[in-house]
């Protein structure tokens, strides 16, 4: 293709895209947001949506690697009051409710009296990439960086429950952390999970990538539920309460829910009447390198890098397109040793052969054959949850 022809085609494509976005329910999420010069405790400077409660997003380049460093890991709290000091001498986690023996355990005892286990798992906010939706879905307008992947170390939730001994009618487990509201009447950020949803991969973690958890990621202890969105990964976990019945709670009944239909979608002016929790993550990939607006030398050898993940079903392929999705080529995946819940790193080496704008797309496919749809094919939901469109970055080849 002659260079002039290329420009014509890309202009036409760009035109189609801009007409398209006004009619479609989703487009590429926001990218390239300003990184606050002010670093939060134990963090590098990040995209900062709020200081109280803290809401910090990781910039795109972080996802060039399959492990997210603690200092780069995103932060999302719900309540304005977060303990800024925890005395490990007095800190206890309490197991109570429908158990034979209620008990409290210190961090020290947790580390010495139980089997220590590790799991590498991706953690993603249900509203990650919410800024992709049109009309704007309510909530923080995250780009694609409300996610990360770490190696978590702790003890199995099951072992704690076994020590307490579950009573016959035990069915639900409520998890409460130490964040608190300004008004005592505000509902606590408690999550409830059904006993049968919990497998041995669910742990109570005190370490992240071989270090203590950062305060802002839930020091000294948080729940880790591999494969599910982060809304249930309660931070600064202090209480585990076993019940027979589901208790009505704001953060379970109203927030973090999608329409209870096949497409999990609805019309902006006609909300679907029933909803369900977001729970399992869908298949997704994000390109960490190159970033949007990068300049690349024509004919030079570049390596696209990124991460892909799902709910633990397992990523089988990441496909790359450099012709706007007409043809796809397989990227190389890392060895997968980090396990099925971890970010799967991918890389794709190629040489751009034409000058001008070049769009690189990534599409992950999992073991069940689920694959990421194009952004334009994603349907709308009022909470702006579960966006998983094919990722793309556009660079300038000179």
């Amino acid at each position, binding site marked *: 293709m002659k260079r002039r022809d290329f420009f014509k085609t890309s202009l036409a494509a760009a035109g189609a895209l801009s007409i398209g976005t006004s009619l479609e329910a989703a487009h590429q999420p926001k990218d390239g947001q300003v990184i606050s010069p002010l670093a*939060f405790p134990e963090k590098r400077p990040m995209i900062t949506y709020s200081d109280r409660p803290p809401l910090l997003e990781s910039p795109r380049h972080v996802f060039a690697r399959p492990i997210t460093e603690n200092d780069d890991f995103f932060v999302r709290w719900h309540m304005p009051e977060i303990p800024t000091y925890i005395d*490990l001498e007095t800190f206890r986690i309490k197991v109570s409710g429908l158990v034979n023996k209620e008990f409290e355990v210190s961090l020290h005892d947790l580390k010495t009296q139980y089997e220590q286990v590790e799991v590498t798992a991706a953690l993603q906010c249900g509203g990650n990439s919410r800024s992709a939706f049109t009309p*704007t879905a309510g909530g923080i307008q995250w780009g694609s960086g409300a996610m990360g992947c770490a190696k978590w170390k702790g003890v199995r939730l099951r072992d704690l429950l076994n020590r307490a001994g579950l009573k016959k009618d035990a069915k639900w487990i409520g998890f409460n952390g130490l964040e608190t509201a300004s*008004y005592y009447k*505000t509902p606590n950020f408690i999550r409830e999970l059904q006993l049968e949803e919990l497998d041995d991969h669910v742990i109570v973690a005190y370490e992240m990538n071989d270090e*203590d958890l950062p305060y802002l990621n839930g020091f000294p202890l948080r729940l880790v539920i591999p494969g599910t969105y982060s809304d249930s990964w309660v931070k600064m976990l202090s209480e585990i309460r076993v019940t027979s019945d589901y208790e009505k709670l704001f953060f379970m009944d109203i927030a973090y829910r999608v329409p209870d239909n096949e497409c999990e979608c609805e019309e902006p002016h006609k909300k679907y009447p029933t909803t369900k929790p977001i729970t399992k993550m869908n298949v997704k990939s994000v390109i960490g390198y190159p970033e949007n607006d990068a300049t690349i030398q024509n004919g030079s050898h570049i390596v696209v890098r990124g991460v892909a993940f799902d709910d633990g079903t397992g990523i089988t392929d990441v496909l790359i397109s450099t012709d706007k999705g007409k043809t796809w080529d397989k990227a190389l995946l890392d060895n997968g040793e980090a396990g099925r819940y971890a970010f799967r790193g991918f890389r794709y080496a190629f040489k751009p052969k034409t000058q001008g704008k070049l769009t690189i797309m990534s599409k992950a496919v999992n073991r069940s054959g689920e694959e990421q749809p194009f952004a334009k094919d994603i349907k709308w939901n009022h909470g702006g949850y579960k966006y998983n469109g094919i990722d793309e970055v556009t660079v300038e080849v000179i």
Partner: protein
Amino acid sequence: MKKLLLIALMASALFAQVKQSEEIAVPYIPYPIKMGKGFNAVQANCLTCHSFGYIINQGPQSKDFWAGKVVKMVVHFKAPIDKKDTQTIIDYLYKHYGNGKLK
């Protein structure tokens, strides 16, 4: 040996490593909120629980959206906002962070 000990002591004084168990301080960020009629009610009611970042980063929204958000704060989060302030805050939010649509 003595010398080594001295160096060790000096190093610990110079680079006194913060232990994780020490208190952290979350910084304050002055989000550039727009001034205008009703701002006082916004400052008095909203800031108790969340930063202005929460408002600015919702994106431009309809009047119904903002009304829904304020009502959610009262109904679900139990914010003690009286009826008069509720309307003032909704009007302020729509004027400064609205998308021009009522619904």
